[in-house]
């Protein structure tokens, strides 16, 4: 990675992201990698607010705010227009949260990538509807408290595996990334930038407010998600070629869960079960990557 890539900056200070906001770190990284020739489609998400209220913008690139469910479609239009105007250099980036990706924007995303629209779709995943006040999404992990999964009704369903869904579309590039691994993230964003067709980045972005963690822990927690195999770092080319980018030394999930208020109700038994689920997913991934028979 060239050092000047890490040095350049496309996010202004003075934005209203919460202290320790992982989504903001993710945005800084991705824009550093993509550079100034980037146009952003921004469907409803935390970043709709962080990006600034009229007449202010927190971003140094052009942004089109879009309706919640239109991340894939709006980008399709922007790309088409740029092509018609002869601008093939500019990268079109959709920047969406997990709600706008896994749930309400799922159709438009699926439609866009099925058409292999030439754009990058980055989903920064904070695992719930954080902007509206921590409601569960299909990205909310098993075991989590949210304001719509309270008390005994904590979420007892798995998180949707969005990357595998995208992979099933056989798009040129789909990758996971984490704010705790900047070099990996920047490399993937740059790699995506240099490709054509639909490219998908699933970026793990911790949320101190919604996860009930101290703001200074947000990167640490994101790192632990990778270290525990809860959020493995990997990339898939053409829906076929899997590469696992980081092989953790099999840390236990327990520590990750214990540090977060949203999981504080979980018993040891629950955590054992979650550990099993994580192991299962990891084995599955290893098989896909051809590292297990």
């Amino acid at each position, binding site marked *: 990675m060239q050092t000047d890539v890490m040095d350049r900056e496309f996010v202004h200070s003075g934005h209203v992201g919460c202290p320790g906001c992982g989504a903001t770190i993710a945005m800084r990284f991705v824009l550093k990698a993509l550079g100034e020739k980037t146009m952003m489609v921004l469907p409803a998400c935390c970043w709709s607010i962080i990006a600034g209220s009229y007449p202010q913008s927190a971003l*140094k690139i052009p942004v089109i705010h879009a309706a919640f469910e239109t991340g894939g479609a709006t980008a*399709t*239009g922007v790309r088409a227009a740029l092509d*018609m105007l002869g601008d093939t250099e500019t990268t079109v980036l959709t920047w969406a949260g997990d709600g706008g990706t896994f749930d309400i924007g799922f159709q438009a995303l699926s*439609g866009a990538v099925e058409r292999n629209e030439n754009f990058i779709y980055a989903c920064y995943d904070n695992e719930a509807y954080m902007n509206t006040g921590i409601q569960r999404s299909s990205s909310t992990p098993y075991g989590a408290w949210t304001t719509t999964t309270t008390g005994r009704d904590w979420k007892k369903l798995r998180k949707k595996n969005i990357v595998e869904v995208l992979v099933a579309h056989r798009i040129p590039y789909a990758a996971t990334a984490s704010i705790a691994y900047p070099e990996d993230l920047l490399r993937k964003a740059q790699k995506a930038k240099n490709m054509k067709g639909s490219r998908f980045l699933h970026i793990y972005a911790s949320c101190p407010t919604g996860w009930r963690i101290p703001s200074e822990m947000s990167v640490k927690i994101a790192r632990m998600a990778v270290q525990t195999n809860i959020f493995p770092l990997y990339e898939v080319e053409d829906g076929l070629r899997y590469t696992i980018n980081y092989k953790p030394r099999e840390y236990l999930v327990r520590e990750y869960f214990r540090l977060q208020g949203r999981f504080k109700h979980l018993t040891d038994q629950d955590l054992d079960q979650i550990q099993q689920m994580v192991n299962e997913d990891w084995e599955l991934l290893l098989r896909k990557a051809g590292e297990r028979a």
Partner: protein
Amino acid sequence: MKRVLEGSHAVAEAVRLAKVQVISAYPITPQTHIVEILSEYCTKGLMNARFLRVESEHSCMAALIGAQTAGVRTFTATSGQGLALMHELLHWASGARLPIVMAEVNRALAPGWNIWVDQTDSLAQRDTGWIQMYCEDGQEVLDSTLQAFYLAESVNLPVMVVLDAFYLSHTYEPVDVPGQEAVDRFLPPYVPKFQLDTAHPCGFGPLVAPGDYMEMRYHIAMAMDDALIRFGEIEDAFAAQFNRRYGPVEAIECEDAEIIFVTTGTLTSTCRLALQDLRAKGEKAGILKIKLLRPFPYERIREELKGAKKVAVIDRNFSFGAGGIFAQEVRAALCNTPDHPPVFGFIAGIGGRDVTPEMLTEIYRQTKNSDAPQKESVWMGLHEVKYAD
């Protein structure tokens, strides 16, 4: 050059001539013929445009919002359910001040499934900030579509060109299709007043607090007012080039009319027949055809109706719990003028049912024979129904 075209094809010809750059569409009957032709034009290189085969009407409008913001001329067509699905983004397009043009083929809303004409779909979008033009025949469809681009881009508001399902969309008529040079003389190339630009980055559609939102809405209101004036100017320019003019309303034999029908769309043509018969029998009838629903030409309507003794508005739509929507609009236009004529509301042709000259004559008879409307709306042609046991 005169060609015999479907209403759908008239739209497509206009879109080709307007040199639209991005077209996005999702199939829905009875709009499909419009985009089928456009898709083919793009494939054959008869148009230099990108045709986006999106996965829903919602995404269709979202894609146009993206494309138009990025700085190109755009077009789509839809109908009924499709328009209803777009609803959220219709607000978005006008709020974002995007001059998108759409052909909307009026189709009844489900359930039960009904693909035939009914204006409730487009009238339900009355408050979305779109300019709406209702057309009567193939020529008007073509001409209005060309004018729509000009008008939309003049005031930075989206325009919906509305045509009746089948009666217009699938009906072949001779249509004068102008040459490209003539259209180019009329319609200037698209120059965006703003666009996504990496050299001048700014954010479009951010959070707007109460301190500014109201002024932004007021500017849309002003643009709508302006659109009425610009519509006239554009019609002048169009008439100078092509020698055709429609007006925001068309008054047919209204000068001495005592009872004036108010109509829209193809129903107007049927009414023209009925009018001939009535006039032949010495009845002092007239027709006021409304083309523009938004901006609503209040002044012209008051002007045209002020001499009438009675007004009979025929609505191929219905607002449940209120009445026919054009009737409400006309009443609202008149209510503050002294000694205005009573407005009789008639509901006819819902869900594609035929409206015959006889039915219109019956409407005339009922209006003539009543001193005042007995109720808000009179449903015409209802039959006995058989209920399930």
